[in-house]
């Protein structure tokens, strides 16, 4: 499925994705209207379910707040594609069932507003007539993601 790209810079920290003061709101539905507020206050209105966030190196660095991938998922972001991820963000995203994938070449070739399509299982992105290969998730993490995140995965183990 094709979606619109929202592109962000290198070392994008979790304070920019969702600032500390909003972590006190009681749920992600209340928080999601403040996603990327310091960088693009219109983001929550502009992003549509199925759209993609594209980042540079070290996407999601900083705090351990799971609310960062949480608000992106709540806004319907299909996946985050970046040159590299900070480890806590990466783990949190998988655990809540938000696809994240490393793609070295794509981010430099696209801008906000471009369209792209991701095949997570094959690790391939198509954008602007080009095909980009991404680094596939380790099988262990792909399994958690396929099951819909850590809670679903734990329930399955118990069953």
């Amino acid at each position, binding site marked *: 499925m094709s979606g619109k790209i929202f592109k962000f810079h290198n070392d994008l920290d979790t304070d920019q994705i969702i600032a500390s003061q909003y972590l006190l709101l*009681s749920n992600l539905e209340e928080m999601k209207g403040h996603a990327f507020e310091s960088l693009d206050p219109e983001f929550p209105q502009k992003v549509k379910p199925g759209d993609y966030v594209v980042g540079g190196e*070290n996407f999601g660095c900083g705090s351990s707040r799971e609310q960062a991938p949480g608000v992106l998922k709540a806004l319907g972001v299909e996946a985050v594609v970046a040159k590299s991820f900070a480890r*806590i963000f990466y783990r949190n995203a998988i655990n809540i069932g938000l696809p994240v994938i490393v793609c070295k070449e794509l981010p430099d070739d696209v801008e906000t507003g471009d369209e792209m399509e991701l095949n997570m299982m094959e690790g391939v992105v198509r954008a602007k007539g080009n095909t980009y290969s991404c680094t596939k998730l380790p099988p262990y993490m792909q399994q958690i993601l396929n099951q819909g995140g850590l809670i679903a995965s734990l329930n399955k183990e118990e069953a």
Partner: protein
Amino acid sequence: MGQTIIEKIISHNIGAESVKPGDIVTVQVDRVMLDDIMIPFIVAKFEEMGFPQVWDADKVVLIYDHLVPASQQDDTRHYKIGDAFAEKYGIQNLHRSDGICHQLMTEAGYVKPGDAVFGTDSHTTTYGCVGAFSTGIGYTEMAAILGTGTLWVKVPETIRVQIDGKLPEGVMSKDVILRLIGDLGADGATYRCLEFTGSAVEQMTVSSRMTMANMAIEAGAKCAVFTPDEKTAEYCGIQLDDFQKSLTGDSDAVYAQTLIYQAEDFEPVMACPSQVDKIRSVKELEGTIIDQVFIGSCTNGRLEDLKVAADVLKGKKVADFVKLIVTPASRKVYEEAAAQGILKTLAEAGAIITHPGCGLCCGRTGGILSDGERVVATNNRNFLGRMGTSKVEIYLASPATAAACAAAGRIVSAGQEA
């Protein structure tokens, strides 16, 4: 083949002969830390997962610090949920107003060398100061640990950082770690463990090592470790056992990278707005006018930090247009600083001394700044908007430098503030 410190800790934990970087293993968790901001989310996930009980109540520590004392009515909701959770599952380790989580975990003896400890805050890397494997996780994973007592981890590669010699007068471990973050870059240690060694590191107090382990995450590191020694044993109030004594990097261990520094080459530095890896010598920045100074946080709010600041400010006054905010990291630090006259010296110089806790560091209370203002701060992050609006400039520095700047009203090197 030899092993790095983190490989030894993980091998020991899972009962294996050895592990290698990239292995995915399931570790038995020795202790977990839940902080007040995340507690409501952890509790909701724990209940959603349907576990009948916490795997081991004694291994669970709840700490209220970011929201203490409450600055908004809603903050108290977090305490209530935490109190009810502790009551329901028999958790005794509950700190309602004793200070910052990372300070308390080691200070109150919850972490020992060789332990595997996880917390819902990214600065959980701090406990590597006593030779533990510790790192931050999200609230869903924390809920899963509370139910299972286990967590899967990928064994990280190790970057060895060797620092030999003696640090120059006025240079603190904060200057060392800032320089290292500048050299590595904000993602230079991503997924990796930083292993600190060398004679300069051996001379450091546990508090100074804590500052460095605390900021390892700012280079993206998964964790940071120091070899436990006699100082560690004394700090933890234990005798090191054979396993704990073995926690040194073997000479034939495989390192992803080795960085070698001479301690004498370090100088006072600052991380400039708004990136932690934008490191400049204090000398280059001298003269920049400031509005506020913050001395505190889990990075630099300990007794030795407050003492250094008091030594700089003794008999001097904070510039009249500057607000100096001092926030001890814990109640114990607060009491000791009071007993030693450190708080008196700081108060006489014009400091605003606040209650122990996270305070201004997380931008929720106690000195929020507004557009165009500039602050010199001893904490760990200068991200856009962290201490107020996104038009505030945050310079990160050591307590010695911060205190000197408070007296001068501008950026200066310690010793130049008069």
